[in-house]
């Protein structure tokens, strides 16, 4: 189970890094946080799970989106 979750996280991480649309990257990042929160819950760490879900999927996603919406969404470099 943990292997499956981690493989999923890794796949999402590669997507986050390689996507051209920054918003998709942010959503994938939030999904990584949620999956890792689930992972932490399975690993008997409920406190870390709550924090990761609240911080990773909530606060940091809000801040990322807050920046993206005033700037640009495409990764135009390269």
């Amino acid at each position: 189970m943990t292997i499956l979750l981690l493989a999923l996280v890794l796949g999402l991480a590669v997507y986050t890094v390689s996507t051209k649309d920054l918003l998709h990257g942010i959503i994938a990042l939030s999904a990584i946080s949620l999956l890792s929160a689930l992972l932490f819950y399975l690993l008997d760490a409920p406190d870390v799970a709550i924090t990761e879900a609240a911080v990773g999927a909530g606060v940091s996603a809000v801040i990322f989106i807050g920046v993206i919406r005033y700037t640009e969404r495409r990764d135009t470099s390269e």
Partner: protein
Amino acid sequence: MKPGTRWTQFWTVLSFAALAAVLVPVFVIDAPWPAAARDYVEAQGVREIGSYNLVSAVYLGYRIFDTVGEIIVLIASVIGTVAVFSAAGAVLAEGYEIDLRNMSDREKQEIMDDSSFTLPGEKRHTHALRTHLLEVVTGVLGPVVVLFGFYIMVYGHSSPGGGFQGGVIIASGIVFLALGNRMESSTMLTRPPVLERIESAAFLVLALASFGGMFTGTGFFGDFLKEFALYPAGFMMIMKVSIGLIVGAGIGYLCIAMVGREIT
């Protein structure tokens, strides 16, 4: 392609591979996990700290200074982030102070558009994500979420949760209130000056509480309420509530700053 580019790529790959190779030994340690700390906390944690949640016992008891350091990082980060944002021309959270009565419909509409959740490149109408439904629901849910945050904050000693987690939930409640009530009736809680006051007062309480133990013989950040035993984990409660208020007000401020409108 410039002549230096390929050389840079070579160095990039080389250094990356070198660091990757170096990291491997740390990841493959197979020694048994040392249990000394676990055994001590399991045996003594409840008696010494008064918390059934052993993570809280470590987080808010034995290693309280790490937690305080983290909260200080948060405070500095909020101050810095808000300062940088306002320097960049995003005047934050202006919407709450605007008197709507003297405005024309078009100006109101502009403010609505500016404060919507639209993203660049979005094809829909500008404030499609900011529906009336959203306002009503978040406005009603806001106080409930804040209350739930307090619950998580206060009951962290016997169940998962604690000051920080509760604080984040309070912050999301504050953001809900801000989203729900921003145009018609503004809540005190969503005004940046009020949030800043809460944050600074809680920080002052935290800093002063650190001195308490020095007078009662339990040392810096020591449990100075130990002898009075007003409530199990009384000192931990002070820490939790002040941390929760700092986090709630700070992160709430940060998020409101992010959804505030921009004036350039």
